[in-house]
């Protein structure tokens, strides 16, 4: 069983939901990331989504766009991201790490070399925003052979037919994007999310995470009431953006945010 599947199985027996923070690797400087990952786990994160910086993050709002720009200003590459995961694994062999990013850096490295290197580094899953399963038949095979969970997105516009198709390619969990838009958008409609999750659950047994629009303990708790996992991206990255000049404050501030969310979700 993969680390991701184990994690969801354990949480299920505990009657808890997964808290999944997102950070862009290398934001706001490369030295910040690994200690931050450990701090997030200590604060209650169950899975870490580590963003691979890309020059053209088409599905991201300004907060994560700027995170990519800060990381790229330090030349953070996919190789560097994998090294960060390997360093993280020296002290943490349990917490699943999912890479999230765009296809081109992986395409340039080559799918087989990437899958091998990611597996060696201790990566558990890969979410490539711009790779729908239709284009990913070969890639999914390569990932699964390397025991990497291919994570796919579902959206409010995904039809029942496509939900089935997407979930057939996915493993680990599926990620429901709670609204039409880019990361960092506002106004999450929990009732609408719940209705769509019912539809998704009728079509797959995979755990369903929900992201986009979760900004504080209150929204995290609301979403945890209907989803198997709560993904928090821009709200976390905002704490990095606010502390670029004093990077020592990044980990404590993010840990405080996640602790609040954890408490509210478990209450």
């Amino acid at each position, binding site marked *: 069983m993969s680390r991701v599947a184990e994690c969801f199985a354990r949480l299920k027996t505990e009657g808890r939901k997964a808290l999944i923070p997102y950070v862009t690797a290398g934001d706001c400087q490369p030295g910040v990331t690994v200690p931050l990952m450990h701090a997030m786990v200590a604060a209650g994160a169950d899975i870490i989504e580590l963003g691979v910086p890309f020059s053209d993050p088409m599905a991201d709002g300004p907060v994560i766009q700027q995170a990519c720009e800060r990381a790229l200003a330090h030349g953070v590459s996919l190789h560097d991201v994998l090294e960060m995961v390997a360093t993280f694994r020296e002290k943490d062999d349990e917490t699943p790490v999912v890479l999230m990013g765009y296809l081109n850096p992986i395409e340039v490295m080559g799918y087989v070399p990437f899958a091998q290197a990611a597996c060696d580094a201790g990566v558990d899953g890969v979410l490539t925003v711009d790779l729908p399963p239709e284009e990913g038949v070969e890639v999914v095979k390569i990932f699964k052979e390397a025991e990497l969970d291919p994570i796919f997105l579902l959206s*409010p516009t995904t039809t029942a037919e496509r939900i089935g198709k997407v979930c057939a390619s996915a493993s680990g969990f599926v990620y429901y994007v709670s609204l039409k838009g880019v990361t960092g958008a506002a106004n999450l409609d929990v009732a609408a999310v719940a209705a769509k999750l019912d539809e998704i659950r009728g079509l797959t047994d995979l755990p369903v995470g929900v992201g986009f629009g979760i900004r504080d303990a209150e929204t995290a708790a609301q979403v945890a009431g209907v989803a198997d996992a709560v993904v928090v991206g821009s709200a976390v990255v905002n704490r990095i953006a606010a502390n670029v000049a004093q990077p020592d404050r990044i980990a404590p501030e993010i840990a405080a945010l996640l602790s609040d969310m954890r408490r509210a979700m478990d209450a």
Partner: protein
Amino acid sequence: MSKLIDSLPDENGHFGVYGGRFVAETLMEALEELQSVYDKMKNDAEFQAEFDADLAHYVGRPSPLYFARRWTDILGGARVYLKREDLNHTGAHKINNTIGQALLAKRMGKTRIIAETGAGQHGVASATVAARLGLECVVYMGADDVKRQALNVYRMRLLGATVVPVESGSRTLKDALNEAMRDWVTNIDNTFYIIGTVAGPHPYPAMVRDFQCVIGREARRQIQQAEGRLPDALVACVGGGSNAIGLFYPFLDDEGVALYGVEGGGDGPETDRHAAPLCSGRPGVLHGNRTYLMEDDNGQIIETHSISAGLDYPGVGPEHAWLKDIGRANYVAVTDAEALQAFHDLTRFEGIMPALESSHALAHGAKLAASMDKDNVIIVNLSGRGDKDIHTVAGLEGIKV
């Protein structure tokens, strides 16, 4: 060679390994809907009649195929014909495609149009059709391009469009495209995204090509009337590549017709300041399709440079990538300096002021013509007029207009 016309893309939008549909999940349903509507309209006599009527009475087609007699004499080689897309309404070939896509938007009941633009020609063409159909129009344009194409920005605003300067990334066309995609994903219910070139996710590359093919169909008929035969070569500039594919496509199965796509060579394709992915890039995935890209060893897209905003793009349409790989078309690069020389030459020798984009095609056309015999015939696609570039050209010469 087996028949190329009508052979590609396949049903998933692939031209060989290129093309496809690499987008976030939220866009998948919208692209499938667009494809199904377009597939129907492609064979719908009423839709095609409306499109043809608009091209005739609103755009002013057919555009002339002009024999550049004086320039031909000066070059001393092949007879040079110019396909006068600069004479279209709004001054470039872009309007052919926006007319087609706007008709689709209307059929699909969309009330809002968005577009990206580099030189501003596609933005103007989109704002124009939006005004005519009474649709809201938002145009995304790199902040640097907003500065260097001020005339077109004002033109779009006069037409009632909102022009949004994009400050992210390299502040040029690729970033405008990113921002338009973000808008589309957010407003997908009421918004139609008019992509201006033969790139992006399927069905855009094939659909834009089909709308632009009127250029090549006319040119094929016109050159046979003028010369009694097909040309020896076609030359067109390639940013995303819509004017080039529009000219080339109806000639793909004519083996005797050589095809030349001309990229923005900037300071020279051997330098790191250019916009020539087919000449010196490599395959990757960006903006919804697999194609040749300007990228670094880590797969990050690198900033491009061209004197021409319309060629300043790190990717290229997937059909061009495929035509390059199978050897049907040749892709070359022309430097800023060579393009500027061609701009002046055509202006002084023929009294036609070309767009800086088209000046790249003219510069290569001049080299090619000079290397050929007097009984050879070439067609250069004069894709747009140069009024919008007067400030750029004057600025380079230290003149304040």
